[in-house]
């Protein structure tokens, strides 16, 4: 815990920072277990408002705190004013529950949701009094873990993380915690503990592996350098999704957070196979919760939180079996309690109309549709099984159900994209607009607002596009300029992302071990909170690349060949490289792969017994 003097300094600091409520803890349903001997600091490398909106953290927080003798406490990345204040006053970054410095926890775990949070991992460790570099940690220092989707390619963070947990964390986090606790009590050495961890399925301990490079910078070989360490690490897949522990009493922040509502995960995984989408591959197979269980969870979540809104989440909620029935059931149960229902990530080709009618009576916000690409050709390339008709029907349904705000989301710079595809975006936007005006005035809501928003495609590991190069910055800029001109229409707003962040994301997400030095340098140069546009500083990142002597284009823009060893090849994600390669070839040929709910496509999961049936 902080000393009295530090506490007094902290109080003074809290008086002076923005939104101090982020640092107070003590919320409803917080778990406070100061008596439990073994501390696990659960770290989210972004601010409180972002981290507290994240479901995975809440799930693991509950699981860990349900263990006897373990106290799991939350630590978030402080905003810049607080981070600087802590450093200035010499107060270590602390947990919200008991105000314990990060360095006093035997285990520290980071959840990695996006690559642009990586510098925050270093910053948080450093603020918490823990050496950022794994090799600089001493015998009794905390063991630093990381997991989450952005650990799918763990290589860029290998200098900082002692052990990665790949795949679903529900079981592995318990196994790891109990093992470390037992071995620490026995007085085992750090090295022995890490070796023991490497024997747990799904755990990757980078220090026991080595990469050798070719002259051209590609990887010549990669593998274990210690006997008994598995050459291939297989991701953990948690199959009993129905009965999986859920944060039934979720923490209710005092302040407004990004997703200020109950999040109810009804389904994990997605079988659509959109070729750009990493989540669609790394969370297979699809696992659904029964409507009965969902109702049970909804009941306890709503009554223990007091939230006014319930959001049904998954990668593709429209695919949930019996969605309409579930929505009707939830509405019936919660209407009198004034709980609004929201359904993000609906697909436009589902039975939208019914569902809209059911949710529509509660609250009408905006609706977002992911069209992803402007022409059928390109949608076939990326395997986005949505047609223009689907979109127009959906939009028309939305308008006539009373939604006047429509957001349509596209990706630009997708593989094989041409200017015709950009024209397609503009044509589609015009058609959506026309659809609105074609409706009789009486049956459409007033105040049409169409938002077209685009982001730049980032090739990701474990997708069919993992070999692709990203468009060069000039190309991206030129395309954005072109679209801006094309999308000047009344009632329509166009938003796009600057390419700089996407370029860094492209470089880091497919980086190898040498990327670690770049991240370290960038952090030394002051990079942190890079996912915030106001804090992201491209020049500093460029400088970091230069200093380390690493070429951004080598990682971001280079097309990789099929026989190249990719940095993440040693991980068995379930989906095979061979399947991804075939999918990439089909993409180039514009051939689609239908949803595997209608028949197995042999993605690789069928190899694993009992996993995908």
């Amino acid at each position, binding site marked *: 815990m902080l000393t009295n003097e530090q506490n*007094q300094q902290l*109080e*003074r600091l*809290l*008086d002076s920072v923005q939104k*101090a*409520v982020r640092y*107070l*803890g*003590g*919320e*409803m*349903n*917080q778990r*406070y277990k100061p008596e439990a001997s073994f501390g696990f600091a659960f770290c989210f490398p972004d601010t409180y408002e972002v981290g507290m909106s994240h479901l995975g953290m809440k799930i693991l927080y509950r699981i860990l705190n349900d263990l006897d003798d373990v106290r799991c406490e939350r630590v978030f990345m402080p905003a810049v004013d607080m981070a600087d204040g802590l450093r200035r006053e010499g107060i270590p970054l602390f947990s919200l529950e008991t105000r314990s410095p990060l360095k006093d926890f035997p285990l520290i775990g980071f959840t990695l949701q996006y690559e642009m949070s990586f510098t925050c991992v270093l910053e948080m460790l450093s603020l918490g009094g823990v050496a950022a570099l794994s090799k600089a940690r001493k015998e009794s220092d905390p063991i630093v873990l990381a997991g989450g989707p952005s650990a799918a390619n763990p290589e860029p963070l290998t200098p900082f993380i002692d052990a990665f947990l790949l795949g679903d964390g529900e079981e592995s986090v318990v196994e790891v915690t109990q093992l470390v606790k037992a071995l620490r009590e026995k007085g085992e050495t750090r090295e022995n503990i890490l070796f023991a961890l490497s024997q747990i399925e799904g755990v990757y301990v980078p220090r026991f592996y080595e990469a050798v490079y070719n002259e051209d910078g590609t990887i010549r070989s990669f593998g274990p350098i210690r006997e008994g360490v598995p050459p291939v690490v297989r991701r953990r897949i948690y199959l009993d999704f129905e009965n999986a522990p859920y944060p039934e009493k979720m923490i*209710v922040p*005092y*302040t*407004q957070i990004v997703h200020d509502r109950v999040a109810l995960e009804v389904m994990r995984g997605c079988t659509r196979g959109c070729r750009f989408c990493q989540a669609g591959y790394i969370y297979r197979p699809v696992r659904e919760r029964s409507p009965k269980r969902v109702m049970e969870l909804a009941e306890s979540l709503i*009554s*223990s*939180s*007091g*939230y*006014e809104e319930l959001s049904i989440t998954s990668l593709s909620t429209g695919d949930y079996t019996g969605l309409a029935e579930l929505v009707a059931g939830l509405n019936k149960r919660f209407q009198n*309690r*004034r709980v609004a229902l929201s359904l993000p990530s609906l697909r436009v080709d589902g039975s939208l109309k019914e569902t809209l009618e059911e949710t529509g009576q509660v*609250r009408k916000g905006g609706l977002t549709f992911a069209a992803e690409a402007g022409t059928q050709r390109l949608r076939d390339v990326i395997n986005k099984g949505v047609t223009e008709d689907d979109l127009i029907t959906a939009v028309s349904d939305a308008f006539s159900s009373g939604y006047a705000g429509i957001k349509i989301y596209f990706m630009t710079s997708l593989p094989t994209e041409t200017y015709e595809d950009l024209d397609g975006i503009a044509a589609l936007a015009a058609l959506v607009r026309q659809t609105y005006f074609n409706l009789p005035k009486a049956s459409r809501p007033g105040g049409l607002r169409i938002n077209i928003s685009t982001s730049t495609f980032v090739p990701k590991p474990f997708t069919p596009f993992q070999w692709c190069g990203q468009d060069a910055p000039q190309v991206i800029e030129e395309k954005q300029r072109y679209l801006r001109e094309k999308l000047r229409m009344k009632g329509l707003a166009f938003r796009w992302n600057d390419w700089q962040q996407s370029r860094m994301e492209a470089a880091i997400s497919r980086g190898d071990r040498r990327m670690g030095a770049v991240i370290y340098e960038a952090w030394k140069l002051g990079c942190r909170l890079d996912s915030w546009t106001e804090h992201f500083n491209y020049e500093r990142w460029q400088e970091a690349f230069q200093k380390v002597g690493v070429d951004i284009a080598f990682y971001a823009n280079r097309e990789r060949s099929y026989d190249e060893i990719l940095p993440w090849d040693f991980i068995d994600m379930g989906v095979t490289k061979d399947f991804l390669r075939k999918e990439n070839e089909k993409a180039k040929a514009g051939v689609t792969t239908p949803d595997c709910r209608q028949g197995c496509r042999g993605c690789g999961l069928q190899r694993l017994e009992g996993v995908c049936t």
Partner: protein
Amino acid sequence: MKCWAVYQVPESLRLLGHLDLMRSMQRVLRRSGLPIKYSQGFNPHVQMSLAAPKPVGMAGENELMEFTLTEPLPREAVKEAIQKALPEVMALKGLILRDDKAAALPALVRMASYRVDFYGKPPFSARQLSDFLSQTEIPAVKTTKKGKRSYDMRPLIMQAELKGQSLHCTLSLWEGGACRCDDFLEQLCRFAGVSEAPQVIYTRVRLLDKKAKPLDSYADC
């Protein structure tokens, strides 16, 4: 049935702002499972009000909120439900049952008593405090949304004394005139020639009506 819940905002939550507290207390009521009255309209919300906005940076020992139940329930049942719905760090200190026609809670507040705890010794003496109070006029400036405005602070100070390490005071708090506790301390420090602002913890101890009767001591009606 109208109810007043008397609750504590602990020191650890003193940095909670009024809006955050409002939203949180609404959720407390929703969690309680009690038959709470909602506002009408398309986006119905819990009908409740806090006695007085809580300034950021201030703990509260006897804060009050008013809400209405759509059906009468025994006091103990209501108390228990609210206590359970409050975050562990907040305590329910009492429940007062009010007649539906009784005056609304915020309209009764006229003043509040405060305690200012210093880290270490108070930077002024009891003598300096009484000299400060014996002035017939204390010109001060407050910054409002409309700009700076000068006013006389003296009539807004009901009482103030030093007790050990703490300053206790009662200040006016209503639309007819309000004095912020930190403004009061600042004036006092300036008067006593204290150069550096002392580090303190502010606590609003009680909310009082026009006869200086604490609202938390009201009887049921």
